[in-house]
Structure formats: C-alpha cells, structure tokens
C-alpha cells in the first residue's frame, strides 16, 4: 500500500505554514534530486535530447554521405568512430541516430497513450460489460507474442519509420490501458473518494477532480519506463532488417549490418551497441528515479 502523504510516521510537523507549502510535484522534485542514479539518468536523457535537436551542428558529416573510396576505415582523427561499409561516417550516423531513437520512443508512447488512456478510463470508470469487453481485447492481444504482433502489423502497414512507430504503439497501448484501469479501480476504494461522495460530489466531478490527478503520476512513470522498451524494440526490428530502411541511421540497423564485418572491423559493432546501452540505461535510471520520487508502486 502506498500512502499519498510524504510525512513519515513520527516525523514532527513543524508549522502549518510548512505543511501547506508541500506539493506533490515539489516533494517529488526534492526526492528526485537526492537520488544520484536518477540525476545520472536525467543527465543522459538531457544530453540525448540536445544531441537530437542540434544533430546538424554536432555531426561533422551528413548521415547518408557515402564515400566508397574511404569505406571501412578504422577510427581516425577525421572519422572518430571510423567509416562503414559504404564509407559513411559512423560518428555522424550515431549522432543522427539519436533522432530516430527518440522519435521512436516518444512516438510509440504517444500512440500508446492515445489508444490506452480513453480505453483505460472507460474500463476503469464505467465497469460492467464495457470493462469486460475491453479487458478481453487486451487479453487477446497479450496472448500474441509481441514480436510476432509487431511484425504482422508492420507487414500489413508496410515498412518505414512511421509504420514501425505505429505498429509498436499498437503493441504498447495494452500496458497503458491495463495500468490506468488498475489505478482507477484501486483509487475508487480510497477514503478521499468516499469523502467526496459524502459532501455530494457528482460522479463526473470525482472522476475528473479526484481520480484522474491521482492516476497521472503512475502514468508518467509508466511512459518513461516504456520509452526505453520502445527504443529497444525498434533497434531489435531494425537489427533484423525489418524496421527502418537505409540510409536512415538506426542504431539497431547499424549493429545488424556490423555482424558481417565483425571479425576485422570490430568498431562497427562497438559504437552503436554502446549508444543503445547508454540510452537504455539513461531512460531506465530516469524512469526508476521518477517512480521512487512519486512513490509509485510498480506492482499494481
């Protein structure tokens, strides 16, 4: 059971003034700032976002400038991370790759929320037959292996970055919907809802003023934890050659291409895998930090 109050039992409440100044967000920010791993995560995520925005200034070469004469060159002063099999600068491709990864992570979660929030709200608030139908749909989609479902959808839609994001979003909405429903079901039983009913608040008012705001923190946490999962899924699909097409610089695609050259040109595999690993770690630390800061239980 998580409690919404931030005061530990036995901790003295100094003044009424101090109590009033504490807000959910303020508390969360204070707790977040005390968590070293969370700050590391915040740093990595900020760096990634800045890299994606300013990629044109950071990357020394365009991501698709092939130069067959200088193909497969080891890291040097000019090409920090070497060049790939058609002579493209690996460092520039990794810099531009942050755009793809972030677009996938944010795009997938946006689609997941667009589908998942309304359905989760209906299931959690309306209950009855609507709830039953929505949850059975969720169950059916969960029973299909995620990779197969994503591939089936990509095959139906056709490949390309946008369709990959759409397909992964359709796979990811299940979690958002289930989480929101579970949150609403447990919040409905809380004392503050009873209190609101006692003073005569309408059902709609309780839903909007009391239930939803309390379900927002867990949703934010779920989204930050879902971003690296989506990035991983895109990297995996592109690694298999089924996601984003060349010349778009997807880290997963770069790792997949590197396999045939690994015996000699080791650097082709090292740098994109490091980029994936750092991104995953950054978002995970950030997400875990947010979860601890908002004091959200992940078991729900």
């Amino acid at each position, binding site marked *: 059971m998580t409690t919404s109050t931030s005061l530990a039992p036995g901790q003295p409440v100094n003044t009424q003034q101090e109590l009033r100044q504490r807000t959910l967000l303020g508390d969360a920010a204070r707790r977040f700032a005390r968590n070293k791993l969370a700050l590391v995560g915040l740093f990595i995520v900020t760096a990634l976002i800045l890299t994606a925005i300013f990629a044109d200034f950071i990357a020394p070469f365009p991501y698709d400038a092939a130069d067959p004469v200088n193909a497969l060159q080891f890291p040097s002063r000019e090409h920090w991370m070497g060049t790939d099999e058609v002579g493209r600068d690996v460092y520039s491709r990794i810099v531009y790759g942050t755009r793809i990864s972030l677009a996938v992570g944010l795009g997938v979660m946006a689609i997941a929320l667009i589908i998942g929030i309304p359905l989760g709200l209906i299931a959690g608030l309306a209950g009855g037959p609507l709830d039953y139908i929505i949850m*059975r749909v969720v*169950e*059916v*989609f969960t*029973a*299909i*292996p995620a*990779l*197969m479902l994503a*591939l*089936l*959808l990509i*095959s*139906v839609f*056709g490949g390309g970055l946008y369709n990959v994001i759409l397909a992964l979003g359709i796979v990811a909405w299940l979690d958002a919907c289930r989480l929101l429903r579970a949150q609403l079901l447990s919040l409905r039983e809380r004392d503050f809802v009873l209190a609101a009913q006692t003073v005569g608040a309408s059902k709609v008012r309780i839903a909007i003023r009391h239930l939803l705001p309390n379900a927002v923190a867990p949703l934010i946490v779920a989204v930050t934890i879902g971003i*690296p999962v989506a990035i*991983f899924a895109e*990297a*995996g699909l592109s*690694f*298999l050659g*089924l996601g984003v097409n060349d010349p778009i610089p997807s880290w997963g695609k770069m*790792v997949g291409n*590197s*396999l045939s050259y*690994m*015996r000699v040109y*080791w650097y082709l*595999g*090292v740098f994109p*895998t490091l980029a*994936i*690993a750092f991104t*995953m*770690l950054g978002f*995970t630390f950030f997400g875990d930090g947010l979860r601890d800061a908002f004091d959200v239980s992940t078991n729900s």
Partner: protein
Amino acid sequence: MARYLLGRFAGILIVFFIVSVVVFLLMHAIPGGPYNEDKVPLSPEAKANYMRKYGLDRPLVEQYVLYMGNALRGDFGVPFQSPTETVTGLIARTWPVSASLGFAALLVAIPLGLLLGIIAATRQNTWLDYAASATSTLGLTVPNFVVAVWLVLLFAVQLKWLPTGGWGEWYHYIMPVVALALAPMALTARYTRTSILEVSRSDFIRTARAKGLSGRQIMTRHTLRNALIPLITVLGPQIPNLITGTIFIESIFRVPGLGKFFVTSILGRDYPMIMALLLLVAVVWSVVYLITDILYTIVDPRVRLGKSKS
C-alpha cells in the same frame, strides 16, 4: 482444484480461439501471398496449381475451418518455406535446440541470481550490495543482442577463445547461454534482494531470533522459504520466451533453432507455420501459467486455488 483447472482450461480455449481468428485475419490482410513473383518465379499456371493444392483459392472462412479442423487432428500442414517436410517435423527438429538453450540459460540464471540477491540482502548497503545491484541493473537494461555482440567481440574476435557461432559442440552453448541468462539472472537477483529484506522485517523472523536461532538457520529455514514465493510470479512469464527461442541470439550465434521462424514465417506469408507457432506459444504460456499456479499451492499452503479470499 479440479474444477478450478477445468475453468482455467475453458478460459484458455476461448482466448485462443479468438486469438487464432485475429491472427488468421491479420496474416491474410498482409498484401502478397506465399507464391508471389517476388518470392518464387512461377508461371501463372504453376502458381494457380500451388494455390489450389494448399486450398489458398478458397474463401477465408473455409480456409480457417479447414486448417483448424486439421490442426485439431494433429495435422498442421506443410510449411511453404520448406515444402519437403511438415510443420510438425520442422518444429520437432528446431524447437529442441531453442528449448535446450532456454533451459540451460534458466539453470545458470536462477542459482546465480539467488546467490547475488542473497549476498546483496545480507550485506545491505556495502560495496558487495552495490556491485550486485549494478550487475542486475545492467543485466535488466542492456538488450541481449547488444550483450551478444559484445561477447562475440571480446571472446571470439579479440581473445579467440570461442568460435563466433555455430552449433553441435558443448562450447557453442557458452556465449548464447550467457547472453540469454543475464536478464533472468538480474531479475531473480533484484527480486530476491527486495523480498528477503521485506521478510526479514516480519514478526516470525523476530520470533526466530528471539528463540535463539543462528543467523544461518534463520536465513535457510525461515527467511528464504518465504522470500522465494514471489519469485515464482516473476520468473514464470520469463520461461515461455526463453524456451521458444530468441531470434536475436539465434541469428547472432548462428543457432539452428525455432526463433527465426517467428520472423521468416511472416515474411514468407507461410500461413500454416504462423498459425502453428502461435498455437505453440499459446500452449507453452498456458502450461507455464498452470504450473506456476499449482506451484503456489505447494510452496504457500495459505493459497487455495479457485477459492476467493473473502
């Protein structure tokens, strides 16, 4: 118990029926068919013959009823991508390879994870605890194909201790098993640690200490037994994914397992294979879930299946 299991079984059948219809429609919604010109160069007459032979010229409803009817009698058809064998034969040939990797990974992951978790919990907030936690965070976060690439680069390319991949000798197991075991090991370690710390605060542990048991006795006889119960829920869902084959690991290490068919069957519009794989995964999931439910009643006498806690 029997009534509960029967109810569960009926529920699984209904969900599977709907899933099979959804996937059947989805896979037929994919543009192109198994005998299109981009896959095999065939004359229109030969293509028509193949379509007739495998019933692909019939209405979708008829195709579905036909396939499911045959499947219930144990005939899953012929994989279009490998027409000289049956779907059953293909799965019987490749699944044991994937399953042996998966089970080997579990055999490595669970004991190591338990050990890491116990060390971290008993030496809470020491460098050992931090090292164990860092290992499990890395294991849970870094994707297994990234780990696999690093393993190949280090042990095959740089140190030349192991071949880059292949299958048939015992040493071919080493790198795929390590890459597969890392995530479940990390998960086990993390949950063991939290669970032990939680149980250690309970009253019966205080009682055990009060009656003078040694720390080791308390750990093995009281804490661990109770701390391991939630692990069943955590590890259960990991098992189906591990034993039905991981395409990333199998393609990096060139393991001839089942994993790649999850992708090639869809790319090749291999309808019988898609349906068979789906059925296989559904059955494995249901079996694993049933086993975890039953295991619960064995390790935790407080749990009774089919009775709601009122």
